[in-house]
């Protein structure tokens, strides 16, 4: 298997508290990995370290076998795209202008760039909104604009921090179907999710974090078990078989 990203013994300490402790993970091309866990488990911190936003206090992150911290911002932006939780844009840029910014890391190729932008606008169902000012959009629409910008960046590695948080049911599914399609085409996607059923439905692998450590790591059916979820989330749950699809279905009791 083709390992794109490696976290080696990554630890992050803030105010004498270990946010992440000795995390060892490898991420392959062609896979969707969901990072799940209770609030404060270290999901966003792990994503931040893995995408190069945060410097780990111990250990290292390797992209294509090279230390992430040694890479220039421009070169890194051609390798990985990041969808953060915050979608605010200052000043009244239009939706298509923001999506087009996703092409900035690449050398300009007008025809190719235009195709990528159109495809990204289609995938996020933004064609009817393309001329609108981003500041006038709803929360979900801004999130889709950010998602489209990340798609336009067309990188082999994608980091998505709760991409479905503000989305309606239809767009949650659409977004993860798009993500699934990218992975099937060879991308390595790492996505923070709160909805365990979205994770179960679309990820090849779930990494369950608990207090800065990996509590479970494997295919959805192995990670999403009643005993593990009860212990980590301290919440009674039932894990059923999805009536239509061969995936587990988590139901709160």
């Amino acid at each position: 298997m083709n390992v794109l990203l490696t976290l080696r013994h990554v630890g992050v300490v803030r105010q004498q508290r270990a946010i992440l402790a000795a995390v060892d993970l490898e991420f392959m091309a062609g896979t969707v990995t969901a990072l799940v866990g209770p609030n404060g488990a270290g999901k966003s911190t792990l994503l931040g370290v893995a995408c190069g936003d945060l410097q780990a206090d111990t250990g290292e992150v390797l992209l294509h076998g090279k230390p992430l911290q040694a890479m220039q911002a421009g070169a890194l932006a051609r390798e990985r795209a990041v969808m953060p939780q915050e979608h605010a844009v200052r000043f009244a840029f239009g939706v298509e202008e923001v999506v087009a910014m996703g092409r900035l890391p690449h050398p300009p190729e007008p025809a190719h760039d235009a195709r990528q932008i159109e495809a990204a606008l289609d995938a996020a169902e933004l064609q009817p909104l393309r001329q609108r000012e981003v500041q006038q959009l709803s929360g979900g629409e801004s999130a889709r604009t950010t998602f489209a910008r990340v798609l336009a960046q067309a990188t082999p590695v994608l980091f998505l921090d709760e991409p479905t948080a503000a989305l309606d049911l239809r767009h949650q599914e659409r977004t993860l179907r798009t993500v699934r399609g990218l992975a099937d085409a060879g991308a390595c996607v790492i996505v923070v999710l709160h909805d365990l059923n979205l994770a179960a439905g679309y990820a090849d692998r779930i990494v369950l974090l608990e207090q800065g450590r990996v509590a479970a790591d494997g295919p959805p059916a192995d990670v999403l078990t009643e005993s593990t979820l009860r212990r980590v989330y301290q919440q009674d749950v039932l894990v059923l078989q999805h009536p239509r699809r061969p995936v587990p279905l988590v139901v709160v009791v």
Partner: protein
Amino acid sequence: MTVMSFQLPPDRRRRRGQLMLLVVFIALLAAVLASFAVGPLRLPPMEVLQALGVKLGLVDAAQVSARDVAVVWQLRIPRVLLGAIVGASLAMAGASLQGLFGNPLADPGIVGVSQGAALGAVAAIVLGAATVGGWVIPLAAFTGGAVAISITYLLARPGRGDGNATLLLVGIAMAAFCSALIGFFTYIASEAQLQSLVFWQLGSLASADWADVAAVVPLFAIGMVCLLRLATPLDMLALGERQAQHLGLDVARTRRRLVAFSALLVGAAVAFAGSVGFVGLIVPHVARLLVGPGHRWMLPLSGVLGALLIVVADTIARTLDPPSEIPLGLFSAALGAPFFLWLVMQRRSKGGV
């Protein structure tokens, strides 16, 4: 860096940008020619053109009065040119600072850059450094301005606390601190130094001469060209610093450049015209309304609009009550302060930053 040369593919603002730039530039040329003609001595347009022609060797000197030539050539042209450069500098610096802070309330006067630059200039005069050479005051103004923006930025950078409130409070503190130091230098200044100091408090183009123009042009040219090259990075910063970094922008380096070039323009403007407030606030706002927020068009349009605003304001300032003139700084503050309040109220109703 590839980022610099890149154009966003659906550049639907392009035609509008070019058109507005052209229209405002023509308006600027008209205002410049008109302001050559008006003043305590009113000259008909033909005589202005003849006076210009004499110097260019197109018109026989015998046909035009030497007095007209001197008024146009020695007083008005340098004054108008300096005014245009000061206006363009302040407006472009304002536009860049707004992009840097991610806040349309950022203005050289509000974030404390102008006061920092004025402090630098005043310190240079009072400490006697100004006698070393004409370049000392602009250099001191640049240094003061750069230090002031850097401090304001460290304390009120985007994403740190509540955007508007933090920025305005830090700006107030910065301005107050600079004013205190300016007050101290004024206190220890000699009689002769005091006279030149008063000039900074008001903001005026009255003492403009060709030497000023010659000194300010290179500073302006460097600052302007360098800021225009940062148009795309400024667009990226609108997404937030982290997101700009995700798109491949070296945010730390861009920030240093924006601080340096804005301080250069503000320093140049303050060194030669004193503190003329609010130009950097109003003009980028108008430019954004005309061509949208993309800095590729908004930044140069701000420059031309800023030049237009100051040329018109200065022309009015010296014709309303001849032969005395209203200080330009009073004029711009009287216009700018209500506009600033309106902007704050409007943003508050929208829910702030």
